[in-house]
């Protein structure tokens, strides 16, 4: 109230001063900082990946002759295609099944927890499981996973789908509460079964939250290192991140080869970011700020 009253007293001064006054000092500081601190290390990575060891005297200089063979060598050495397909499989299957299964569990539990002691208990069970980080259960889990012969790409994918459940239940629960129940009631009146109500009515409404969950799941599986490290020992089953660690010894001081290999792993993510940057930022924000 006060704000609108006072602005109406002196509208002229405010209009002239405020909206078009660019803060050039802040712009300059932020731009210089971004170029050196954020783009700097990325430039370094690209430049080193494009050189051969003899061109490393002046590390930061752009190479006089671009050496593409680093990429070819890294591709062959780390068996990039296998690792890429493993990572892609884990990422895609995890996203699809996480969205379908986790959203359903979260919906059923949230919607019916006031009428079912079991669902109410499950809600608290899952949400309290968020306090148990992977690092805490990894020792016994590894024993159990090898007992079940799940120390492979399929096994780890199932584990990702399961381990995302607490966090995703929490995310979806906040969303389900906002969906008016009248829509579901109308569908039930029309004779829809509970599963039809979910998949035909609720699931499509959840789209914004699906996007958030998909982005967070993608970031998690593509960049995860610890879970592949403890679960995937067979080279044929390894992921891209794990391969970078495994080959660290073999890259040794051949930084050109190592950085070409890193570029191959970073490139898909960077490309995605360039095209979907707006959605990724929005998705990550809504995942944290509900």
């Amino acid at each position, binding site marked *: 109230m*006060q*704000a609108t009253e*006072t*602005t109406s007293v002196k509208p002229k001064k405010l209009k002239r001063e405020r909206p078009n*006054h*660019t*803060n*050039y000092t802040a*712009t300059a500081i*932020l*731009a210089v900082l*971004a170029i050196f*601190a*954020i783009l700097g*290390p*990325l430039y*370094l990575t690209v430049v080193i990946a494009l050189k051969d060891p003899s061109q490393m005297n002046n*590390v*930061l200089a752009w190479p006089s002759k671009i050496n593409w063979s680093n990429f070819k060598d890294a591709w062959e050495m780390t068996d990039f295609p296998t690792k890429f397909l493993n990572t892609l499989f884990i990422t895609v299957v995890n996203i699809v099944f996480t969205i379908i*299964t986790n959203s*359903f*569990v979260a919906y*059923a539990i949230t919607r019916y927890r006031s009428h*079912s002691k079991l*669902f109410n208990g*499950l809600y608290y069970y*899952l949400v309290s*499981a968020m*306090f*148990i*980080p992977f*690092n*805490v*259960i*990894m*020792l*016994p889990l590894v024993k*159990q996973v090898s007992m079940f012969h799940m120390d492979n790409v399929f096994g780890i994918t*199932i584990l990702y789908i*399961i381990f995302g459940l607490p966090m995703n239940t929490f995310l979806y629960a906040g969303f389900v509460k906002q969906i008016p*129940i009248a829509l*579901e*009631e109308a569908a039930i009146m029309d004779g829809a*079964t*509970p599963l039809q109500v979910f998949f035909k009515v609720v699931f499509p409404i959840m789209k914004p939250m699906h996007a958030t969950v998909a982005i967070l799941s993608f*970031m998690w599986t593509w*960049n995860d*290192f*610890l879970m592949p490290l*403890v679960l995937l020992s067979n080279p044929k089953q390894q992921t891209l*991140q794990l391969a970078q660690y495994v080959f660290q010894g073999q890259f040794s001081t051949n930084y050109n080869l190592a950085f070409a290999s*890193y570029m191959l*792993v970073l490139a898909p993510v960077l490309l*995605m*970011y360039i095209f979907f940057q707006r959605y*990724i*930022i929005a998705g990550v*924000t809504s995942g*944290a*700020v509900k």
Partner: protein
Amino acid sequence: MDTLRKRTKSKISPTLYIAVAPMIILFFVFHTIPFLRGVFYSFTDWPGYGAWHFVGLRNYLYMFSNSQIGDAYWFTFKFALVATILVNLISLALAVGLNSRIKFQNTMKALYFLPYMLGTLIVGFIFNFIFGTLIPQFGQALNIGWLSSNILGTDHAWIGILIVTIWQGLAFNTLIYLSGLQSISTEIYEAAELDGTTPWQKFWRITFPLIAPFFTINLVLSVKGYLMVFDQIMAMTSGGPGNSTTSISVLIYTQGFQGSQFAIQSANAVVLFIVVAAISLFQLRILNKREERLQ
């Protein structure tokens, strides 16, 4: 409508129970059972294979007397505290800058968020080169002693880990603070300006209270994440030199899997869980109190 609402809600179709069951059972088998087994092993002397005996609290007592485990807790707490404070201070400053009337605002925002997209392991490897080769080269060329050696090989190795963590951690926290700042209406500031508030007062009296919920989110997530620190250490120092950068998670991994301390590290994991749960619950209580106050 009211009777319908009661009827549809109070009678839960068995289909729902059946459809929810598989995920819950899988979660119990692969998350809760390993957790309970971990607690169980922490009271035994199981080396990870073969026979075992109950040893009571021996593993827990050992933890308190073992200097390696003590060092890991000291490093992890020190690291988590300093990283949380620095990341939140710097990202708050960055967010205030990004929220001011700057040119290319969206591009800048996208640039500052970019490190979040990159895998921590690879970021660690890149900084490994920066600390190990690039900076010493500059240091030697310019004859600056303290820049001429690899910080990761010195007593200050943890600062190298800290710098990488801050570099990457800023992205997420800045984004959250920025979305908090953007939720504040400009009218409040205009009113304050007419009342003659200084920029300093404006920030502490208006901005900060209004973004307090965002501050809590960042604090909860930062502390929890940094107490788990693992990837960047494995990429840069593997816990060294000596044990100086061995975090609790690194210790559980190296001693639990490669060493013969399966049971001892199980006890370590249980203590880590208690620490993380206690800190998270404490923070959530503050969060809830604040929500109550807002209502």
